[in-house]
């Protein structure tokens, strides 16, 4: 069985005409696969490499540079919550927010909560410093948050 769904393959192919070569489709392909499967598995890497006419090692080289992508041993929870710890947020409690959220959910940054509902991550500046401290849920920013709110989101409430 193929590691990539037909829909993922089609979405990847749809990117080919946008770039002068297929290697440039690496990041889009990784996004498409992780979006669908919550991680990028070994088997998926091999198939992406085949589609992009690259060696699997080239995909791994790129993927491993960006802490963003998860392997099959560490798939994402249903939602991914990033807590910003850079200066503007830290000045308004960002570090403490991250520590409290991790304590209350019994996780370290990068871990999933026990029931797999959420993945908690630390983030550097999310570009929403006017709403410090802030978080990113999947790819939507949420400004001026409290630990209670973040924990509730992580618990799927």
């Amino acid at each position, binding site marked *: 069985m193929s590691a990539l769904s037909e829909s993922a393959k089609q979405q990847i192919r749809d990117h080919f005409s*946008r*770039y*002068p*070569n297929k*290697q*440039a*489709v*690496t*990041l*889009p392909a*990784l*996004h498409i696969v992780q979006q669908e499967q919550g991680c990028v598995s070994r088997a998926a890497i091999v198939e992406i490499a085949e589609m*992009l006419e690259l060696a699997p090692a080239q995909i791994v*080289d*790129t993927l*491993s*540079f*960006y*802490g*963003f*992508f998860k392997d099959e041993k560490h798939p994402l929870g249903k939602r991914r919550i*990033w807590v910003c*710890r*850079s*200066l*503007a947020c*830290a*000045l*308004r409690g960002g*570090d*403490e927010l*991250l*520590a*409290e959220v*991790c304590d209350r959910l019994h996780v*370290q*940054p*990068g871990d999933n909560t026990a029931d797999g509902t959420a993945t908690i991550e*630390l*983030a*550097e*500046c*999310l*570009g*929403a*410093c*006017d*709403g*410090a401290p802030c978080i*990113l849920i*999947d*790819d*939507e*920013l949420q400004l001026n948050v409290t630990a209670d709110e973040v924990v509730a989101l992580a618990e799927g409430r």
Partner: protein
Amino acid sequence: MSAPFEPVLLARRGMPDGQSLKTYQATGGYEGLRKALAMEPKQVIDTVIKSGLRGRGGAGFSTGTKWTFLPKDIQGPVYLCINGDESEPGTFNNRELIECDPHQVLEGIVITGYATKSTTAYFYLRYEYGRCYRTLKKAIDEMYANNLLGKNILGSNYSLDVHLHRGACAYICGEETGLIESLEGKRAWPRIKPPFPDIEGAFRRPTVVNNVETMACVTQILDRGADWFLSIGVPKDPNNPRDGGSYGPKLYCISGHVNKPGLVELPLGITARELIDKHAGGVWKGRQAKAVVPGGISMGFLSAAELDTPLDFNGPGKVGCLGLCTAAVIVIDDQTSMVDVLYNTCRFFAHESCGQCTPCREGTAWSTKILARIRQGQGTLKDLDTLTDISNTIGIMPGTTICGLADGAAWPIKNALKKFRPEFEEYIKSGRKTQMREVAAAH
């Protein structure tokens, strides 16, 4: 008295349906593009040179002049890369600009594409800006449906495609050659320059890289004229033949310990004090500012005595900061320890160094470790000299690294130890510890 300044770049902020093509065109949108298409590309470049526009992405290089560095009579594709990676701590102007007025940015992209004869534009957008992504996607679809993108734009001979390309959460993708490598599907390792992107950029082709806010300025310059732009901001310093002036409106981000953090559009050259007191409701909790980041944390710090520094392209440099960068101001109140602040900046750069150059990789990591030790009450005065040594030896300026990330890491250290050294010494001598809780996986 001159007339009060009217925001232009943010004019559509808060307008109902302000992001739609309909609203945009009903309020004068795409007039700049029509004017540009009626000119020769060279005339468009001359207009932008004349306006004095300098890039808003950090380096402050003359935008029009950069375009003239493309090789003459190029055969084959020329690429335009829009830098929407915005990740400099304190900075959120590109995000708000895109969210409130995507067409203003996209219009500038088509004008720039026409001026530089670009054949394809890649809009590199940091992944975190999901709302921007969806806003831009919608706007681009509207443009294709209305002959503003694609073949023969507005009946001209010029054709352009714009593709959105999402990043994957790495600060270094904002460095223009890191961006290009990332776009090409590789790890974002900045390239050794020269060759600069104008000569050999994306896919080894001539490439223009410009910031999002720069694009919005281009739109306004073509619509309102170079003289309008020149009438705003700070003129060239007559005593400095190398000064290009600081013209035009600028989006200033204000965050940290102020009552009203936010984004304001003002003429270049406003002072930090005016920004804080007049536009951000003053320092919070009735406190005083101890230090202010003048333009993103890479730039270093202004001390409380330096708050009257004009935030134009020259001001921060005159008081020992690296420059204006993104004009992102972060206010630090007098109850905050500079040891903690510096630890935070060092940790950021250690986390974001791409690891390619040893001085940057090791220097950022060691400065973070030293500050962590100081914060555990185990620092020595000699540590401060070691930190200063590190800050003087990493970066493009001492000539030891490939890109400017290391200079950005060095500057907060230099400024903190020059301007706040007694505080660091007192902290170490008292054996104090920072009680702030921190998650174990420090970096």
